[in-house]
């Protein structure tokens, strides 16, 4: 991977899943800074630097957002809608990472301009491979305007 420091915002309410994702990234040397928030409201607070993030200078805009859909307080679709309708945030790639395989969800997230829709695999090997490929693609091969 490149030596650039790339930031990921991980929006995930399940602590165990968040740990698995971060562990997969670490073990695949996708050495980037991952900032983990536990619900939709916190994600928006982080992105808009408000609430508990109002005074935090290290709240860098992420190069990639990994977004779960079923979230407490503000759900993933609302977070996506807010990001994609904000002039400053809408260029950030948003990868939906969820356990839902519902076609309705898939249709809806693309309707709100998600950049990708990934289903968390149950199998551990597949899970780690997906995280590795995801990191390589979005943070390696893919070019985005913040880099």
């Amino acid at each position: 991977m490149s030596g650039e420091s790339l930031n990921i915002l991980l929006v995930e309410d399940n602590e165990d899943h968040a740990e698995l994702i971060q562990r997969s990234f670490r073990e695949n040397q996708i050495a980037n800074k991952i900032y983990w928030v536990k619900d939709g409201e916190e994600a928006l607070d982080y992105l808009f630097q408000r609430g508990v993030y109002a005074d935090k200078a290290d709240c860098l805009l992420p190069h990639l957002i990994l977004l779960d859909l079923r979230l407490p307080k503000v759900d993933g679709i609302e977070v996506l809608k807010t990001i994609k309708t904000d002039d400053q945030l809408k260029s950030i790639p948003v990868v939906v990472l969820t356990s839902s395989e519902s076609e309705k969800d898939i249709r809806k997230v693309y309707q709100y301009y998600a950049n990708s829709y990934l289903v968390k695999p149950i199998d551990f090997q597949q899970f780690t491979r997906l995280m590795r490929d995801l990191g390589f693609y979005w943070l390696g091969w893919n070019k985005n305007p913040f880099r």
Partner: protein
Amino acid sequence: MLRQCFDEFTRSVVHACFLISPGGIILRSNAAAAQMLGQDGDLLADRNITQLTTTPAEMVVHYLKRCLQSREPVPGALRWRTDTPGHEVDCYCHGYRLLISSDEQEPVVLLHCQLREKAGNSFAALNQTLENLRLSHHKLIDKSNQLTAEILEREEVQKKLAESHERLTTVLDGLDAVVYVADMQTYELMFLNKYAKDNLGITDSGVGKICWQTLQKDQTGPCSFCTNPRLVDAAGNPADVYRWEFQNTQNNCWYDIRDRAIRWIDGRIVRMEIATDITKRKKSEQVLEQKNAELENFTYTISHDLKSPIITIKGFLGSLVSDAGTGDFERMEADVKRIARAADKMQALLDDVLELSRIGRLVNPAAELSITEAANEAIEDLAAFIKEKNAVITVEADMPPVFVDCHRIREVLQNLIENALKYSGSQAEPRIEVGSKVLADGQCAYYVKDNGIGIEAKFYDKIFGLFEKLDPRSAGTGIGLALVKRIIELHGGKIWVESRGPDQGTTFYFTLPRQRIVQED
């Protein structure tokens, strides 16, 4: 004097005129007479009429005599000689006796002659006119007879139509459907069957009333949903049947409606509506739709929420294998704990799903339940938790009783009180109050009020969702309030939440039936 008058009088007359003495002497003649006989007028003077005519002299004398004796014009016929030898002219004449003035001693005859040929033409024309008149008269008589027949026929048809109309209205009265007829221009009701009157609360015949005022509620003019424009074609003639479904604003019943423009007995194009009550079917459909939506939502939630712990379990199991290889026992121990927690969560979710499926129907018959007693029982069951939280709970005495599935409502109270304890936040002395209040509409609402962490208004609906938790780290699966809501709604009640915001406490209100409700199948 007489001669001068004659000249003056006959100058412009187109027929031959002669002034003749009793002896037959022609005293004067006009221009038309000279022209008829082809002789100079002067040559005719003083000649005897018998010399100028070929009619036998005795007939001429006799005719003149009759003229002199009669007070009325005397008709006759004379044949005159002309200056052309062998050419004679036939005339119809009228002789008038003229009384002479003082200088003339005897009466004279004014003879007015009209050529028979010309007169014949006039007669022919007259005859033709008469013939035409006769034909017209016959035609008129024919027409009159025809009209009389038509009128009789129409009267017969009208009679049959009236009979048929009466039979129709009798049949319509017997139908188990709303049937009415209204004028399409004036909206005036012209017929309502018995069923319509019974079901729309119309006590008289309803005829003559305005449809939108009588059949619907709170309309200030013709209904916006009126189908009249669809019932006639561009030329204003009746079109096909228009079928639609509508919930009547007067009695709130749903109807499957067939509308059609028809020609009424008086010839007017009217709107006829036949509406069958489909309220039961509609309600079943609505219930089914709601159940389907709930089921879809339930399946979605279950599949997602049950899948999550499996991902955790499989993920950390895989991690364990690699940790075993590297000998990272510390991480292994933590991962095993994660696996165990995920398995427990899965167990809890499955138990909750089972519980939720059990309350799909209320199984216990409704009985009177004192909310005060039910709340006190819940407090007894939660005694340990209350002590742990150091909470003070007050229950209003003698709250109005309800008619419910007692077991389920005890669960509701237990859940709400437990919830209040769980989200008491950093309160050193959590206070919980169970009570009742009368709402603006007179209904009694029960409440469970706490001084805990409170809730923002934007999350009011979300907290009742299945497996929804505002704090992912809090204990439980997030089924409690979904369960409570389901039980209350199955009783036909309502539940809602109010809070002044974070750390301002929360109040859950709910209503329940105050008397026995007969459940419809």
